[in-house]
């Protein structure tokens, strides 16, 4: 008797279990669709005749017109900034601050994590305090300083040089990572007479490869998508424009030619999406590590 009851109970439990699972996965699936749809929609709109006022978005469909992509490439070239050049510009602007900047941040992070020196705490907490300052406060004065004192107006230098010194945020991220590394290796190397720089370069950097790659990828993604910086400093010189400036220029005061705008957006999104697909692990690690303090 008791056993029978138990079986009935188990069956009921099983049924509600599967119904629950079904609705859970249905919700997850529908929300995923909501996240993916705008991209498919953009792709659908981009395959329209750029000269026509109307557009279709459904894919697959009969007429696939790649005229908008063609127009994007041709028009950009006519405006003095071919697409390949805008992409190259972006890479040239973002690489030095990221590569040299991460190195400088790592150097400082190592010093704070392992070396004892007078004034260390003051400098460390001073640097952390600067992270609190909202970026907007220093935007205008930086712009004016670059223009008036450094005479860097209409050059990409303001986008490149400041980042090469590193950032407090990256430093903190790497500092936390370095603190988790075992000290034994370093101590052995010190006994062997290796210098601090040697230890940093030959032991710490290789050991923290994942953390450093994470920082490089996250910084690259942020810098590639940056709009305000290039808009302030290089927008007036066509040949210096970045990808984001090129995308935004497809929309004019005359109106919004959606197929063309979508074609430009998709071209601009390709590098980001490729990076995300191939380096997803690092994105996830980077975000969760910065969030948990």
């Amino acid at each position, binding site marked *: 008797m008791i056993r029978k009851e138990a079986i009935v109970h188990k069956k009921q439990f099983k049924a509600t279990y599967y119904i629950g699972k079904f609705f859970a996965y249905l919700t997850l699936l529908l929300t995923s669709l909501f*996240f993916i749809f705008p991209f498919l929609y953009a792709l659908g709109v981009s395959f329209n005749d750029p000269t026509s006022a109307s557009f279709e978005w459904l894919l697959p469909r009969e007429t696939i017109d790649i005229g908008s992509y063609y127009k994007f490439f041709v028009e950009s070239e006519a405006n003095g900034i071919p697409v390949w050049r805008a992409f190259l510009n972006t890479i040239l602007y973002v690489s030095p601050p990221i590569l040299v900047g991460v190195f400088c941040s790592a150097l*400082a992070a190592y010093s704070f994590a392992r070396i004892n*020196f007078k004034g260390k705490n003051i400098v460390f907490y001073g640097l952390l305090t600067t992270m609190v300052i909202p970026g907007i*406060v220093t935007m205008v004065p930086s712009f004016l*300083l670059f223009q008036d004192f450094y005479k860097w107006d209409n050059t990409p230098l303001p986008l490149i040089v*400041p980042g090469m010194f590193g950032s407090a945020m990256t430093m903190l991220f790497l500092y936390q990572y370095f603190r988790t590394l075992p000290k034994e290796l370093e101590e052995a190397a010190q006994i062997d007479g290796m210098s601090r720089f040697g230890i940093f370069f030959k032991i710490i950097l290789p050991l923290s490869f994942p953390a450093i790659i994470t920082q490089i990828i996250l910084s690259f993604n942020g810098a590639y998508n940056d709009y305000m910086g290039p808009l302030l400093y290089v927008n007036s010189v066509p040949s210096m424009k970045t990808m984001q400036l090129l995308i935004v220029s497809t929309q004019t005061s005359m109106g919004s030619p959606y197929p063309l705008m979508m074609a430009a957006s998709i071209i601009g999104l390709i590098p980001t999406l490729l990076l995300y697909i191939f380096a997803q692990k690092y994105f996830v690690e980077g975000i969760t590590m910065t*969030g948990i303090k």
Partner: protein
Amino acid sequence: MVRKEKFKKHGPHSKAIKEAIVGWLFVAPLLIGVLLFLAFPLVYAFVISFTDTKATTQGMQFIGFDNYLNVLNEPLFMQGMINVLITCLAVPFGVFIATILTNLLVSNPKFSIIFKSIYYVPTVCGAIAITFIWQSMYAQGYGVINQTLKSLGWIKEDINFISDRNFLISMMVMGIWAGLGTSILLLFASLKAVSKQLYEAASIDGASFIQKFFKITLPALSPTIFYILLTGISGTLQEFARFQAMAGAKGSPAWAMSPVWFIYLRTSNNFRGEASAAGIILGGFILIISAFQFVASRLWVNYDT
């Protein structure tokens, strides 16, 4: 004698000095960068905010708080502040949705990695591209949202989603879509860290799903929720690219204005003093809001677990 000298040279004292020098050398690049490109501009920001620096400047003329008063009396700036403050309402709403989805993901772990990766895609995309995509979805005539609403018979005339009052709601919907991935990732990580035994013990004691959610899940997530709210609100108050791209190159209408956009306009028109003052006002406002959130967080954020 020789030995003694050697000891002196490599004694513990000289070693400490050498370490200190190396320590400072390693910190130097970052420190110089922060001083040159952050501390110096910060001081300069206050200096120009008190000076009369319009298009042509011959030397600086101190004018007290005039720039600050001008900015605060500027309807465009105040409208921008109101716009971004309204848009901030999307942040807690987004956290709410993210919490529900995260709970679903944790209790249904199969395929959760795939779902998380999909939710995160908009986050890696540039603001300009995603704003353009949403603008085309909101478009009148052929845009998918108007089309769908019309075919369902819910509306007869197209709605102009990118104007006046509708604009901010459109921005909020897009903002939630674009930001949910990060929130889910963060919440998922902190929910995973909660011990399963806690839930099991609660189940044995006869706690319901709702009770478990409010007594275990929410307190465990509260530090992460606080972090998302703090960064989300600070980021929304500094919005620029999305607002400008969504408004559609039709000038700078008040209904789409944001404070940073206002500052950008003032900077490019060479109203340096006002632009700088507006930056300080907005930055100060963000700091006050953040400080207030920190104080309020003591009431609801649980750091015990």
